[in-house]
């Protein structure tokens, strides 16, 4: 514990950790719960180029701005993501800073105490750079790629909303493999961004990413890029095909028959497809080839609409204000409480894209350091304050309980003993609750009730 004298058992425990790490053949490092570096082994020193005595006790935290000190840059690259601090094992990939070239794969293993996080064990795996057609480009152009790639990091998807957390977990899984992925989400929900982030965290990240909009590109161009040798010369790592149902059927059939994983020669790109609506519905309507849907949907990720991610609303605003600064020079640093209330009261049918557009136009109008209600578009200024929705807990719980009991009774064909087993409760309790809710068990119950009282 920081700031207190060590307990008698502490030194032997630390010594055991150090012995353990010292004998490992991989670069390992140990952080305390405040993300300060406690120990690292020799392989870590070789990998990072840092000397442990020089950096012991320093914090591994992400920096908002690019650090000028190479030591800080390396420590920032070793910062555990929020999920690791929340106690979950996780893996992430980051560009190796300093003298090391290529990428690092970082594994974080939280060490939990009885009540709180004790520390985090980290492991670095150096990933070899893949050959890429762009390696022929000058460094200044490759620097543009790096700058662009930094805007699409999976760590930036950290979410407080359960649907967002599930999406992040699925995206991490997708990034660790090369199989085709299907993204389904409303327009503007961030499918393109997610596809790029999956590419960026995946094994093909050193190759390029291309997003092909099947509604905008003429079929001959699509065919060339997706199916013909000329397109393969680009050695793309991932192709994101937006709305494949809009492609001519013949192209869909040809695309379905192609292999869709990057090969050693780097000729075949990974396939990620994006749909605004349920692709199964498009298959039924005959717009999407079933074979292509089956090929591309090995892993399907539902991208939630903004209205289901309101827990992340403030984080989105902060990210978007920062992003808007790239083209639109402004000094806006936040949103006034009144404007925030108006923003939260909107239903956002255009999702993240709509929120970004609104914030960008508000930044242009804002005369102060924060966006006021008057800076928002008229339809938001006029939107009524969201009324506090009542959440009567007992009533909601009873509704849920009733639905579960009815479902169990249906499954058990009215047999109360079986239904009680399904629900994991005693039969007597189930009978009491059936009486309480006045549930009509029905004729099936009468037929099978005789078997209850064996």
């Amino acid at each position, binding site marked *: 514990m920081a700031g207190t004298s060590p307990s008698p058992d502490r030194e032997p425990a630390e010594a055991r950790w150090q012995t353990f790490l010292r004998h490992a053949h991989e670069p390992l490092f140990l952080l305390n719960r405040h993300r300060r570096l406690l120990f690292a082994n020799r392989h870590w020193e070789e990998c990072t180029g840092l000397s442990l005595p020089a950096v012991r006790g320093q914090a591994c935290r992400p920096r908002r701005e690019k650090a000028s000190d190479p030591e800080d840059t390396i420590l920032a690259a070793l910062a555990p993501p929020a999920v690791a601090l929340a106690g979950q094992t996780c893996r992430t990939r980051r560009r190796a800073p300093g003298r090391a070239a290529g990428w690092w794969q970082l594994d974080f293993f939280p060490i939990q105490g009885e009540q709180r996080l004790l520390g985090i064990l980290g492991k670095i795996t150096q990933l070899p750079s893949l050959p890429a057609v762009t390696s022929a480009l000058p460094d200044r152009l490759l620097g543009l790629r790096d700058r*662009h790639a930094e805007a699409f990091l999976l760590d930036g998807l950290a979410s407080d909303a359960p649907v967002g957390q599930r999406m992040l977990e699925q995206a991490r899984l997708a990034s660790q493999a090369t199989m085709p992925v299907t993204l389904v989400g409303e327009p503007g929900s961030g499918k393109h961004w997610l596809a790029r982030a999956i590419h960026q965290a995946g094994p093909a990240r050193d190759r390029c990413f291309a997003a092909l909009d099947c509604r905008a590109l003429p079929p001959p161009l699509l065919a060339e890029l997706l199916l013909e040798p000329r397109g393969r010369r680009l050695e793309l790592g991932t192709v994101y095909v937006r709305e494949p149902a809009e492609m001519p059927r013949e192209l869909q059939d040809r695309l379905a028959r192609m292999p869709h994983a990057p090969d050693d020669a780097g000729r075949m790109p990974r396939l990620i497809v994006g749909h605004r609506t349920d692709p199964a519905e498009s298959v039924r309507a005959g717009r999407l080839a079933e074979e292509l849907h089956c090929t591309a949907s090995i892993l399907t990720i539902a991208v939630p609409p903004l209205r289901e991610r309101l827990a992340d609303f403030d984080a989105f605003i902060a990210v978007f204000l920062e992003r808007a600064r790239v083209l639109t020079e402004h000094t806006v640093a936040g949103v006034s409480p009144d404007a925030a209330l108006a923003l939260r009261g909107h239903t956002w049918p255009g999702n993240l894209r709509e929120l970004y557009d609104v914030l960008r136009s508000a930044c242009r109008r804002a005369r102060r350091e924060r966006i006021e209600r008057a800076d928002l578009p008229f339809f938001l200024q006029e939107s009524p304050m969201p009324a506090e929705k009542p959440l009567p807990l007992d009533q909601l719980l009873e509704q849920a309980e009733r639905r579960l009991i009815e479902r169990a009774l249906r499954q058990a064909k009215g047999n109360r003993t079986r239904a009680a087993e399904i629900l994991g409760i005693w039969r007597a309790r189930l009978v009491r609750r059936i009486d309480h809710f006045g549930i009509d068990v029905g004729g099936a119950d009468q037929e099978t009730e005789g078997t209850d009282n064996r």
Partner: protein
Amino acid sequence: MKQAQIISYGLEGPLAGRLQQMAQEHGLWLRELQHVSACRNLLRREGPAVLLLMLGRDVIAELSLAEEVGRASPETAVVVVGDADNPALAALAWDLGARCVLQPPQPVELLPEIVLRLLPGEQQ
């Protein structure tokens, strides 16, 4: 809603003529510019846009603009046109967020059609 704008940088000759004709026929607002900084200033205006970038004069400045637009103005469609067959540059332009990249021997005559398809409200 403001009218969609087409910003054309570095396009000259018959191709520029075809674009002018297309813009006239469809009543679109076409701005032909010769400086990257002028494109950047125009993109700060509100309203959706299609940005046509002919690579050649200052590739780094041109692709920097494409990168900035791809990152910060996703509603703006960037179309990159090259004057030579260069797979590395084409791959990079796609990577930086271009919605379409055209290089010889691809038929550059497709450009007006692509621009029309990329304009907001023109897609079905």
